[in-house]
């Protein structure tokens, strides 16, 4: 686990997604923020997929199709989460099944709360947290979950171990160049994931001035000394949604699932080649999706916001 470096400098941390992805090393444990298809740091995920790292462990709260892409490029040895799917309408994730059922990748399954508390223990700097969940289940036995007796009452509790990722990837609405980070809407597990990690990479829809952060300090989710890298990434969660700004591109997922039906597990690598390798950067991928598509998703989000 180890301690964090004692505070990061108040320095300009801006860099490109590709420069940030280079902070990830082979064999690292990378935690991905957001949940399922909401505020996932896709610009950073795509940059990491492009770099073709090997032997990664990826953890998330609920995992979506990005897990299949990491598996398809041979980057992933192990996924640590509570759920892997593409989303309710699309059923089981076939590429994930292909790799895990053949024993080519491991899936450490924890409950959703246990994942949250594992990150929280990591964020708190303690080795475990006691909880009343996961007790009695085969889930507990499968990950060798230990129990602990309360020293005051003797009550039996599950002791979920801290999870301290090597690198956290987080997408936010706004950040300044020093890494003061603000989000609107759900925070998912992002605060704990970032504070638990050794290295924190944040992409933001918009880089704002320090004064703009100060003007809305109550919205700040992470202070600058928790953050190592800041990447400007407008629409950086696409094809996932970003609260208040744009909805998820469900047709993009429809097309992905249709491609799996047609090509089987090879569809994962095809997707990476066509949507990541074929473009110089994430902006080019967005351009291929088309400004009309992005504008429609923005309109969809505006309709859902409280007036």
């Amino acid at each position, binding site marked *: 686990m180890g301690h964090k470096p004692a505070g990061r400098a108040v320095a300009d941390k801006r860099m490109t997604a590709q420069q940030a992805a280079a902070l990830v090393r082979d064999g690292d444990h990378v935690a991905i923020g957001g*949940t399922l*298809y909401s505020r996932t740091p896709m610009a950073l995920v795509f940059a990491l997929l492009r770099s073709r790292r090997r032997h990664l462990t990826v953890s998330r709260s609920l995992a979506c199709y990005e897990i299949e892409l990491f598996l398809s490029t041979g980057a992933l040895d192990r996924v640590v989460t509570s759920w892997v799917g593409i989303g309710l309408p699309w059923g089981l994730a076939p590429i994930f099944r292909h790799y*895990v*059922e053949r024993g080519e990748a491991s899936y450490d399954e924890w409950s959703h709360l246990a994942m949250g508390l594992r990150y929280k223990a990591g964020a708190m700097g303690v080795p475990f947290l006691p909880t009343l969940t996961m007790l009695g289940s085969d889930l507990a036995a499968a990950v060798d979950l230990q129990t602990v007796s309360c020293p005051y009452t003797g009550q*039996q509790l599950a002791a979920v171990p801290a999870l301290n990722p090597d690198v956290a990837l987080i997408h936010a609405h706004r950040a300044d160049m020093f890494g003061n980070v603000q989000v609107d*809407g759900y925070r998912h597990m992002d605060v704990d994931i970032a504070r638990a990690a050794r290295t924190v990479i944040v992409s933001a829809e918009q880089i704002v001035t320090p004064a703009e952060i100060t003007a809305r300090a109550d919205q700040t989710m992470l202070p600058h000394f928790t953050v190592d890298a800041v990447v400007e990434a407008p629409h950086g969660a696409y094809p996932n949604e970003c609260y208040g700004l744009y909805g998820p591109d469900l047709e993009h997922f429809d097309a992905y699932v249709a491609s799996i039906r047609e090509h089987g597990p090879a569809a994962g690598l095809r997707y990476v080649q066509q949507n990541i390798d074929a473009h110089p950067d994430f902006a080019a991928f967005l351009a291929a999706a088309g400004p009309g598509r992005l504008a429609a998703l923005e309109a969809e989000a505006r309709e859902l916001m409280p007036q």
Partner: protein
Amino acid sequence: MSDLTAEELMAITASRLLADDKVVFAGVGMPLLASGLARRTHAPRLTIVLEGGIIGTSLLPGKLPISTNEMRAAVGAQMLTDITDIFLYAQRGYFDYGFLGAAQVDMYGNINTSVIGSMAQPRVRLPGSGGANDIISLCNQVFIVTQHEPRRFVPRVDFITSPGYLSGGDSRVRAGLVGGSLGAVVTDLALLDFEPSSRRMRLRALQAGVTVAQVRAQTGFELLIDEVGELPPPSAQEVAIYRELRDGPARVAAGAA
């Protein structure tokens, strides 16, 4: 209502179990529809909580979320927080009801959503617990809603993702699960519960027109059966509200034309 689907029948039956002024921890799909229906019928002050961090969603008919973490899930919400925090409200005992589906459920209400076969050699690796293990461990009263089929109602689940009454009796409490309990199992054939001492599944009432023999034939283990009632069939109003919630007002109008 002979044109009812199994899902509609189950959702309407489940919605009637939700009392006003309570808090329900719902998942997307049928649990959310059942909760929304209860709010629009007998329980207008029912608070719907979703694991993405949403407290008090009110739902847009025809635009229901397919993920508990997306913007559509937050329509009309009173509070947005984070995922871990929502589950800690459950652990504290604030949530009266929880709702779960099941790929497999056994006679003690244990649920498997992890693997068909074994973890070492899975025949089908399912998505996993998500919040299911937490909901059944922590919500005060949990309803299991699933279609009544022998492949789902098995003597013993392949893997206990979400603990019901484990091996029966007081085994659940002995495992340290001191909070939650299992309220009922709702199916397209019947309403069932768990007998208080053995904690085995017990037939309580039949859906309209269903026989005990039919229920037995669709259950892969022996049910406890004593007094069996009959559930009142869904009303036309419940069906209409349910379908409007699911499909939106336009499609209901189109269907009626």
